[in-house]
């Protein structure tokens, strides 16, 4: 079937099997490999993308479900050459170790800060509770989100 949606700000229209998972379409058909598969069951958050601004697991979505929607992947989160504030802060705070979980955390955090520019510690932790990280112990990730939020507020 033909599906049409907006991907990283640009319209896209493709023939795909309607039961193809969004993650496979992104990675295999489009080569957008920044979205990672850690479990395939909606349990780790490595595959997080934004659908109409909400963080969702692309391993649980079928292509048919994104018809007409706005999808943003890690490849579309920067503006031009400028990193998203969360990406920048993650580099600075040391929030990245193996990096397999990182794109998912960037997406969940971006969604949070979009909706809630001044989250408290608890809100930050809850917003990324669906994202597993086995390396960092989360401290530096949470710190990175806090710093990114602050910078975004200062900018706007």
């Amino acid at each position: 079937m033909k599906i049409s949606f907006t991907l990283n700000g640009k319209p896209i229209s493709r023939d795909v099997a309607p039961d193809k998972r969004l993650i496979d379409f992104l990675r295999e058909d489009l080569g957008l490999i920044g979205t990672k598969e850690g479990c395939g069951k909606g349990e780790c958050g490595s595959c997080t993308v934004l659908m109409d601004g909400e963080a969702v697991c692309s391993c649980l979505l079928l292509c048919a479900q994104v018809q007409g929607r706005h999808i943003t992947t890690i490849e579309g989160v920067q503006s031009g050459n400028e990193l998203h504030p969360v990406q920048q802060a993650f580099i600075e705070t040391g929030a990245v170790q193996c990096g397999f979980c990182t794109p998912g955390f960037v997406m969940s955090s971006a969604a949070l800060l979009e909706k809630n520019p001044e989250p408290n510690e608890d809100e930050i932790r809850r917003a990324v509770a669906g994202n597993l990280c086995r390396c960092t112990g989360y401290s530096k990730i949470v710190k990175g989100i806090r710093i990114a939020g602050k910078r975004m507020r200062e900018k706007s």
Partner: protein
Amino acid sequence: MKKKNPTSIIGSRTARSDALAKVCGTEKFVADYMYDGMLHVAVIRSPVPHGELQGSNRRELEAMPGVVAVLFAEDIPGKNCIPVVLSDMPCLATGNVLYVGEPVGLIGAETPEAARKACAAARLDIRPLPAITDPEKSRDENAPKLYGDENVFTHLVMRSGDVQTAFQKASVIVEGTYRTPYQEHAYLEPQGMIATPEGDGAMKVTGSMQCPFYVQDAVAQVLGLPLAKVRIVQSTTGGAFGGKEDVPSFVATQAALVAHATGRSARLIYSREEDITTTSKRHPAVLHYRTAADKKGNLLAVEADYILDGGAYTTLSPVVLWRSIVHSVGPYRCPNIKVDARAVATNRVPCGAFRGFGSPQVLFAVESQMDRLADELGIEPAEFRRRNLLKSGDKTSTGQVLKDSVGSHQTLENALSAAGKAPEKKVSSSKRAGRGISTIFYGVGLGAGGEHLARTGATVQILRDGSAVFSVGTTEMGQGMRTALGQIVAEALGIPFERVQMTATDTSRVPDSGPTVASRATTMSGNALLSACKPIRETLFAVAAPLLNTTTDKLKLTQGQIESPSKTIPLQDVIDECFQRRENLAAEGWYRVEGTTFDKSTGQGDAYVTYAWSTNVVDIEVDTETGVVEVKRIFAAHDVGRAVNVSGVEGQIEGGSVQGMGYALMEDILSEDGVIRNPQFSTYIIPTAVDTPEIKPVIVEVPFEGGPFGAKGFGEQPLMGIAPAIANAISDAVGVRINELPLTPERVFAALNQKNKNED
């Protein structure tokens, strides 16, 4: 102690060199590589814990759509074995299968779906045999024999002094049986490999791994190729924690067999479920401990007898057991010791390496016993440790005299002062607060148990434009080795960190450098890099000296320049001059560890070249109505010799502490009759951001002369002492002692109930 140079990059918070690509999602992990014409591999596995293989529906599978290759043991061109410590584990089972999930056959197909379908359609004829699925029954007389006469892979002992007399003289004796569960690594990137046949009958395998030289050995043996024809390239590895030490050898041979049989690239990426059910884990353990002290609070004797469940094959159990026994008395002076440790065989998934390598199990028992002794003696737990904790000049339990870099007491005092006053016991009507402590140590590197592997190579080259490239044989798996090593090269050559590049770890670039395990990468490869930088520096100095009208012994290399007492010259000018004169600015480095010894009959000797030290202080709250334990704060003090990258050291402490907290409170593989029942993240629960407490890393630096800039490996240590500290904190909060991990609400609640009953 060396003076800290304020401009030095060593000890800085330099951002990781791989962070940018990782936050952008452009860093490539094994599953991100796609090749034209690549086949997809699936593994046919045993559904039973023990049985005799009698046949399969091979022909049917071969006829399925999209299937290109179906392979069983008889199709293996080389030796059907995965070399680890011993070589008892086959690549594909033949004769008997020994655990659920044991690889029996391979499918190579055009698409992942076709491979999966064929795999699901596989029918194995297996005559079931009685199985051992409880490690405590493994040594029963009537148990089926899986390994030797007694189902014991390895039996190690440690003996010193006279335990019997010591117990007779002791003022207090405590005794307990402790149980610890499986722990799953749960690295976020599942296992995966891509094998590609190359010209001349060679095979290249790329994938997620810790130990490329192990993989090379395995692939060469299974394919029957000389090592020279097998090249292993590590792809960016998404976490490992020991889980990618030996297991990648299995995965690589599985992919390589299909590639070899078909002449096409073959890719194998494990699903999460396959990964959790069929790959190694932390050994479950059952530990009996008797510990004695005199009335002044001096530790007198430790007697212990314990087993680790090795699973169906030896894999790494002998060396895991070795590390565990060396740590089985803890970091204390103790004159009388009798320890017996066995790794036993069961019909369960083979256990292997996991951060701490056999030590978290024994340390849980040791540190629980220490608190119980302190309690009996009426001494504060911290004070009891202070009296017994090893210091420089003391002898460890293996009789090794400690020399330099013994930061044990500093970690104790610094952790205590960081933690400050203990919280008030009563938090609310149902909640009680408690504080627990553990002091531990970690033998750095492979030690005498793996001395034959304790060497590593490196190459370094300065390029024409003054940038530098280096290669090592150890691997980056998230821990930050690449950045720390880049800092070491930058410092040694006076080149900006941003202009130093590490190549992907590749067996064709450096000689066999042993495994990346035992927290050895930064120290070992760091030393090998320094040895490679040495001749390069000599060349630079030899060329610079006449330009500065001085002799080489008067020269210093600092960031971007070479200095004589009176003048300086830009480094780039010297490099230009070197190229002009056709001097060689490339070199190889080599480093090996000497001087470890071990007598197997007594368990005595200089087990490790040095030790890292740690104290954890943990504050918790227990809800007495639900049994839920909430960790509020962890103060984790670690003597790391020298922190090459402060941010990286903190990251290791924070991440390791949280893994330790998972081990303590929630992580548990449910295995019934050898079948793992919870192979998902929804049922195997690891800590999330909402479960994690405030963690305060306390870095202690007592330099180690044998390490690069004084650094010593410690990456495993942050996990190791958390579980006993939490158990001790529970005891402090509510007066119950639980000897079995994880400390789930059910167990805590049951213990509280029992206590209330006893008090009624």
